[in-house]
């Protein structure tokens, strides 16, 4: 606990640097990542991250210094170049995008490794620390780095706010953006530049491989919580910030722990939890919805069958056996008794020893389903001119979906009919 208070009092300058740096980095790359995720180009971030290395090495070889600005410039140039190369390869040959990304990623990185090792073997003492770009080291962040991070984060934020509308259109409907005269190429260039910026800066904290996660994972997680882009950007940034802080905290309490991988581990856990439990789009919530629909369909089918059983003699409230139902419709026995029990709890049927009978409520609901079924059959034969023996299947599905408003509309269109195409009365 004392670790906790000590950490969050931020008295230690080093803690301050690492935490603020991680938060800035994680949240700003999350924002950029949202756009590349929505453009279905999530993995280009991975390519840029790998392509940064040769630029750093070349900048060092040419300048002979480790001035961070020169190194960043080199990184920026090759990172940017890698995206251009991917673009050229996919547009000028039959190579697909995933292959182009993999190719650029591995070849650029290979060149980088070749140059890096060559520099290391040359015995130039000034080279130590270049591999910071390879594996990243968030724990070694210092004040100067923070200034760079803040500038980049601010730049990203301002660009996102200023060009919000344009970037949104680029992500969702590029063709439309083109038609109404937006400079699509320039916007693409802007987005590319922002991505490269985020990667070049972030890579020093988390390393080449994990940089991809900083872009993709928070965006993918946020995508599950909302349909609104503005909200998605904010959520992704918050998730990134939280994991940045948590990662810094873990490496503070256990100094042997690397910050970057912990940030990625935490944001991944957030993402996986979102995939599973996010309301609406999450896996669990979709499963639950599916189950509920299925059981509703089963219940309505049971009520329908019981209503139909009563139709010939107009004796809707007579007791029926499960076998009566099974004769009429192929539903597994177990499902029938499960459904009937549920219906009894809801007050649609009553149980009398081994037999079941509809209540008034149940009769009304069963009648409605039969009605919708027959109305829809009639509609299909009259308006779509389908043969009357082809419409049953379709009506089986739609009868559970039609709302009262639609029902009213159907009645109007069909002019309050009495008989369906099979000459059954529409109740």
């Amino acid at each position: 606990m004392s670790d906790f208070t000590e950490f969050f009092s931020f008295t230690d300058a080093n803690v301050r640097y690492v935490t603020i740096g991680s938060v800035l980095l994680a949240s700003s790359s999350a924002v950029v990542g949202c756009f590349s995720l929505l453009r279905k180009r999530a993995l280009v971030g991975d390519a840029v991250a790998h392509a940064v290395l040769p630029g750093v090495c070349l900048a060092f070889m040419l300048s002979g210094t480790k001035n961070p600005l020169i190194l960043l410039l080199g990184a920026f140039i090759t990172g940017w170049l890698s995206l251009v190369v991917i673009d050229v390869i996919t547009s000028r040959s039959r190579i697909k995008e995933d292959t182009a990304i993999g190719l650029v990623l591995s070849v650029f990185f290979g060149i980088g490794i070749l140059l890096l090792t060559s520099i290391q073997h040359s015995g130039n003492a000034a080279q130590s620390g270049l591999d910071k770009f390879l594996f990243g080291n968030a724990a070694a962040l210092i004040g100067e780095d923070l200034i760079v991070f803040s500038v980049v984060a601010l730049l990203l934020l301002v660009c996102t706010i200023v060009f919000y509308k344009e970037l949104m259109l680029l992500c969702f409907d590029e063709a439309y953006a083109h038609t109404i005269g937006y400079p699509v190429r320039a916007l693409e260039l802007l987005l590319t530049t922002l991505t490269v910026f985020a990667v070049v800066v972030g890579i020093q904290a988390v390393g080449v491989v994990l940089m991809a996660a900083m872009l993709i994972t928070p965006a993918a997680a946020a995508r599950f919580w909302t349909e609104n882009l503005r909200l998605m950007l904010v959520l992704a940034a918050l998730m990134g910030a939280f994991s940045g802080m948590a990662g810094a905290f873990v490496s503070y309490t256990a100094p042997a722990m690397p910050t970057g991988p912990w940030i990625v581990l935490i944001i991944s856990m957030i993402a996986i939890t979102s995939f599973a439990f996010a309301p609406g789009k999450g896996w669990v919530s979709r499963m639950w919805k599916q189950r509920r629909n299925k059981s509703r369909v089963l219940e309505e089918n049971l009520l329908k069958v019981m209503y139909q059983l009563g139709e010939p003699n107009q004796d809707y409230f007579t007791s029926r056996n499960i076998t009566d139902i099974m004769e009429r419709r192929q539903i597994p026995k177990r499902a029938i008794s499960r459904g009937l029990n549920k219906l009894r709890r809801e007050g649609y049927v009553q149980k009398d020893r081994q037999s079941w009978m509809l209540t008034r409520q149940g009769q009304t609901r069963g009648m409605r389903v039969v009605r919708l079924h027959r109305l829809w059959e009639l509609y299909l034969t009259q308006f779509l001119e389908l043969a009357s023996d082809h419409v049953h299947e379709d009506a089986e599905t739609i009868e559970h979906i039609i709302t009262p408003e639609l029902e009213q509309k159907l009645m109007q269109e069909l002019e309050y009919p009495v008989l369906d195409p099979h000459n059954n009365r529409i109740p």
Partner: protein
Amino acid sequence: MNAFWIILTGSLVATCCSLLGCYLILRRMAMVGDAISHAVLPGIVIAFLVTGSRDSVPMLIGAGLLGVLTTFLIEFFHRVARVQSDAAIGVTFTWLFAIGIILISVFAGQIDLDQDCVLYGEIAYTPIDLWISEDGWILGPRAVWTVGTVTVLVILFICLSYKELYLTAFDAAYAASIGISTSLWYYLLMSAVSLTTVASFESVGAILVVAFLVAPPATAYLLTDNFKTMLVLSALLGILASAAGYYLAVWLDGSIAGAIATVTGIEFVLAFLFSPSRGIWMNRRKIVPAPIN
């Protein structure tokens, strides 16, 4: 002699990776190969912790399992949780890689592994790590045997199930209609990729595996329309790159794996520009219109 062993190891890795890579790029799954090659890290670490040695067989099993798990997870996120496919790949492999690095840090004292070894390997050391039998026979570098076995297995796999692999890659619907299980072959192919990745990683590192999986097949894809030719050509291109890369590395005094990856890139650029059928430089000359009189 060292040069011979290194080039031989490189060529073996090149052969098995390029052959499998042909299927990957045609199935548009090049990045899945990249993901597997990174995501096997925790499997290697766990196998290492359990057995306490760098013995190849447990590592192959541990990492092979992780590779298959990676493909399962990607499929699961994509199909069941409906994450868009590129994001599913990105989330899965970075997550597993992060776990791997954390495991390495936790057990730092017990593991003789580090990140740079995982990323770009130590092919230069292969000739030193000899396999010496109990009678004292020197049987050559251990890596050659491991990678050689895997290469033979991969070639056998492709020869024996050429039809199934071919059909599931080119026309999954037709394959399914004649009773070939597409998901079975998908997972078999992915298991082969995992096995190859793991066998190669120790000697050449993840990055060269990705380079071999993608670059020679992509180059061959620009040079031919016949799939069998593409398989053979990509293996040859990979072998050529291994040899040329070795000498490039010696000349620049740098990483051999990095140099080989560089050469595969050069091969691709040459094919991209000068391929007789599809090179953009060749096409440009063809397009020049005849002068109008």
